[in-house]
Every structure is written in structure tokens, then in C-alpha cells.
């Protein structure tokens, strides 16, 4: 969170909107990030006005994800293996999926409110402000309580690293942070694409949940559990498998059910970049098709 506080705006720094001409891509990104930082910081301060309530919801967020893992623990109280995986190995998948998803949820978790904004017309307010709409929508109601999920994911991952015997190599060590960041980026692109879809179908924000929350739930379990066609779908169509399955199985030294070459474990960053590009295009198309409700 340190980056929220660094770099206060220089007194001379321009802040007037650069409307009227197409800004270069780099400055737009900087603009967006700055707008995001300012809005997110505003929401953090507003949340901190009710500290007790914040503590309760942070705990709730943490406890909610803990219960998910408790369900897996309860399963393993009755069996020693699930789909040929031990508890530690499932915990490894779980921790990585949860932490990567948690990062995306923290930064973009408010995207599902877009439909609501389209419906009641408050999106118009964002359109006239001199900051990229995506940054404004993403930072809307920025909720620090979502750190609860990341914390829980990292704790489970820590547990997995203690109990699972991994033969560490430099490549595997390097793959861990790479996997986390690209996984978060892949989930982030799903959030943005889901937001774009809500321009078309405002009431369908739930559909997004099936790919975001559903996606992270799917990835918490071993791929051997699921039907081949489902595994193919999340490898080649909606490439969620690159969040943790493929790289994590490389680290664990376990085979992937689809007979893919081992180097596919390392292409997650590339997949993440492609996904972000595609969802960026979808977002633009969605935003262009937006017609205000008027009134």
C-alpha cells in the first residue's frame, strides 16, 4: 500500500484535462494510475472514519475465505487424497489461486457495480471527469477489507510450503512471484471484461461472478478432479489454468492432465498480457457503445 502515499502531487504538476486531442498512450496510463491512487486513497480515508466497522468487515472477509478452506480441511478429515493430490498440494493450489485472485479483487473488485451505475445514470458523472473512466470505475468504493482474502491465501500458501516437499530450483523460485503477478493480471482482465459486458447487460453482474469467484474456486482444486473438456476450456478458451494450475504443477513436479509441454508453465506472463489487451479492447468497445439513460 506504500505506493498510495508516495509521490504527492508537485505544486507545478499539470492537472488540467487533456481533452481535445488524443493523448499518447503513456501519459494516459500515468493519468489513470494517478486518478486510481487518488480515488482509492479517498475511499480508504472514508472507511477509516468508522474503524470498528472496518475491523469487523476485514475480519468478515478473512473469515469468509477461511470457511472455504475449512470445507477442504473437512473433506480431508475423511479422505487422504482428492483426485490424487494430498492436502498440502491442494493447499498449494488454493493459496496461489486465492492470493492471485485476492490481488485482482482488491484492485478491481468494484467492477461489478458498473451495471448499477449504467442503470441509474451515475456513470455520466464519471464520463465528464478529466480522468480515464476505467480508473474511476475500478477505484470506486475501493475496499481495503479485501486484504483479508489475500492474507488468508498467503497463510494457506505458507502452510503448503511448509508441509509439501518441493525440490527447489532457481526456475521454480522465480516462477512463484511471476505466477502470482500474472495470475492477478489474468483475473484482472476477467474483471475488466466482465465490466465491459455490463454495458450490454446491466443486470448481469452475476455472470461476472461465475468467472471471477467461480474461477478462483475451480483453481483451488486439482485439475485431475474435473472433466477433460472443462480443463480444456479453462486452458485454451478462458486461460485461467495459467493463473496457477500449469505453473504450480511445474513447481510441484506433477503432470498436467492435458499432456502439454513443460515449458507452458512459463508462459503465464504472456497469457496475462494477451488477456489484458483483449479485455482492454472489450472495455473500449463497451464504453463506446454506452448510451446514457438520459432523463
Amino acid at each position, binding site marked *: 500500500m506504500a505506493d498510495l502515499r508516495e509521490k504527492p502531487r508537485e505544486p507545478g504538476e499539470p492537472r488540467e484535462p487533456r481533452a481535445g486531442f488524443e493523448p499518447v498512450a503513456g501519459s494516459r496510463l500515468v493519468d489513470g494510475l494517478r486518478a486510481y491512487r487518488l480515488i482509492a486513497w479517498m475511499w480508504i480515508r472514508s472507511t477509516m472514519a468508522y474503524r470498528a466497522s472496518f475491523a469487523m468487515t476485514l475480519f*468478515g472477509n478473512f473469515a*469468509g475465505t477461511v*470457511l472455504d478452506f475449512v*470445507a477442504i480441511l473437512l473433506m480431508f478429515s475423511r479422505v487422504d487424497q*482428492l483426485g490424487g493430490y494430498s492436502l498440502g498440494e491442494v493447499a498449494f493450489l488454493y493459496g496461489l489461486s486465492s492470493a492471485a485472485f485476492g490481488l485482482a479483487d482488491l484492485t478491481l473488485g468494484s467492477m461489478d457495480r458498473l451495471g448499477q451505475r449504467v442503470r441509474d445514470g451515475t456513470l455520466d458523472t464519471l464520463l465528464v471527469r478529466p480522468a480515464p473512466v476505467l480508473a474511476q470505475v475500478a477505484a470506486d468504493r475501493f475496499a481495503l477489507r479485501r486484504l483479508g482474502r489475500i492474507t488468508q491465501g498467503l497463510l494457506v500458501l505458507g502452510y503448503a510450503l511448509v508441509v509439501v516437499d518441493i525440490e527447489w530450483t532457481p526456475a521454480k523460485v522465480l516462477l512463484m512471484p511471476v505466477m502470482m503477478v500474472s495470475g492477478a493480471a489474468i483475473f484482472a482482465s476477467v474483471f475488466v471484461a466482465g465490466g465491459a459486458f455490463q454495458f450490454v447487460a446491466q443486470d448481469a453482474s452475476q*455472470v461476472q461472478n*461465475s468467472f471471477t469467484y467461480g474461477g478462483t474456486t475451480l483453481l483451488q*482444486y486439482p485439475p485431475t*478432479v474435473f472433466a477433460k473438456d472443462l480443463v480444456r476450456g479453462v486452458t485454451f478458451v478462458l486461460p485461467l489454468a495459467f493463473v496457477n494450475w500449469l505453473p504450480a504443477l511445474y513447481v510441484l513436479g506433477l503432470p498436467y492432465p492435458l499432456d502439454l509441454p513443460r515449458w507452458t508453465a512459463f508462459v503465464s506472463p504472456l497469457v496475462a498480457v494477451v488477456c489484458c489487451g483483449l479485455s482492454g479492447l472489450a472495455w473500449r468497445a463497451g464504453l463506446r457503445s454506452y448510451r446514457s439513460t438520459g432523463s
Partner: protein
Amino acid sequence: MVRAWRLYAAVAAGGFRRYATYRVATAAGVFTNTVFGLILAYTYIALWDERPGLGGYDQAQAVTYVWVGQGLLSVVAVMGGGFEDELIERIRTGDIAIDLYRPADLQAWWLAADAGRAAFQLLGRGVVPMVFGGLVFQLALPGDAGTWLAFLVAVVLGVLVSFAIRYLVALAAFWFMDGAGVQQLAVLAGLFFSGMTLPLNVFPGALGELARVLPWSALVQAPADVLLGERTGLALLRTYAFQAAWAVGLLAVGRLVQSAATRRVVVQGG
């Protein structure tokens, strides 16, 4: 008396129509339930592969349990999202004072509205996931109308218990003003103890015994067991009695809390 019934019937019909208006949202909800059903069904298959007969279910029953659960999720409002958001908002803003003036009983009014919602969601969000599950997996659904009817009765009782719990949660707003914290805890308890995450008969030892006597087990576990043919004859009556006892008990507590709360109401401003 007749007039009162007509009033609540009208409120219930209104609740039904209100939820029926949002067709896209309903379709989106059905889609989500189906996706989660698919994921859960595969994990349960793996679990029952490892331990056939776990919790007294065979594999087909376990998979059926998943789809019954997904079908009932919104009906018994395990994740909330029924009338309580609105009631909490009315308590917070003080609009509740107007409701208390109305010539209708507060609890009965909201119960009627919630019954209408539940009826719509049983049809709108319950049927499709079940049908999808039946097409993709081998389900253990009963062939006789009697069991389905028995299941419906258990669902109605489950909705009553669910309403009674959520009514208490909403009334907590009289004391806390902001209902979010209590609501969140209620959703967590509901998800875990209703059997949504894992059937309660799979819970080990004392935790399982505790979970099976808590009111949430009346929401999903009880109706599912009835449909799966695990409760017949005397056991069926015991299940109904269990659900009804929690419903009556919690509704009564709701009335007590309501009268305590309304004595506290101070309407601000003039």
C-alpha cells in the same frame, strides 16, 4: 380476518412479481448457480470416488445434493439478498416509523413479501440448474410424486426458518444502525451450517452433531435429505417437526425482539 389474509396474499403476489421483473438478473443468477454447481459436482465426485458411501450418500446422491443446493441457494436466501436489505435501510433512515403506523403486522408483512420472493426464485432459479445437472450427471431424483411433494413441504418450512433468522438479523439494525457486520456474519454462518459448502452428514464428530441441530440445517440439508429419500415415514415427520420447531421458536423470538425494538424507536426530526 379474511381481509387480513387478502392483504398478505396481495403483498406476497407483489413480492413474486417484483422479482419476476428482473429477467436478465434471474438468467445471470441461474448461470452462476450452474457454474458453481458444475465445479462442486466434480469435487464431490472426486471425494466420493475416494470414499464411496461417505455420509451415507452414494455418488449419485452426492451429485444430486449439489444441484439441490444450487437450486435452493436463492430460495432460502443463504447468501441473504431478500427483504432484509430494505428493512435495514428503513430502520436506519427512520421510515420504519411509518411502517409501524400501518394497519398491518410488521413481521407478517415482510414474511408475505419474502414468501412471494421465495416462490418466484424456486421457479425462476431452482428449476434450470436442476435440469442442467440432470442432463450432465447421473442424478438420484425420486420418481414418485409423493417424495417431490414432501420435498416441497420441507422447502416451505426451510423458507420460514430462513425468514425468521433474517428477520432477527434485520432487527439488529435497531441497535447497531449499520446492519452490514451482522448480515455478513449471518451469511457466513448460513453458508457453512446450512450444508451449502459441504453436506452436514460429512462433517466429522461433534462438529457434525452440532451443525445438524442448528437452525441453518433446516434450510438446505433437511429438504435435500427429503428429496434424496433419506427421510421417510417417521423420520420425515421428525424432520418436519425439527424445521417447524425452529421456525416457530425463531419467529416468536422475532416478535419479542420486535416489541423490544419498537419501544426504542425515537423518530428524529419533525
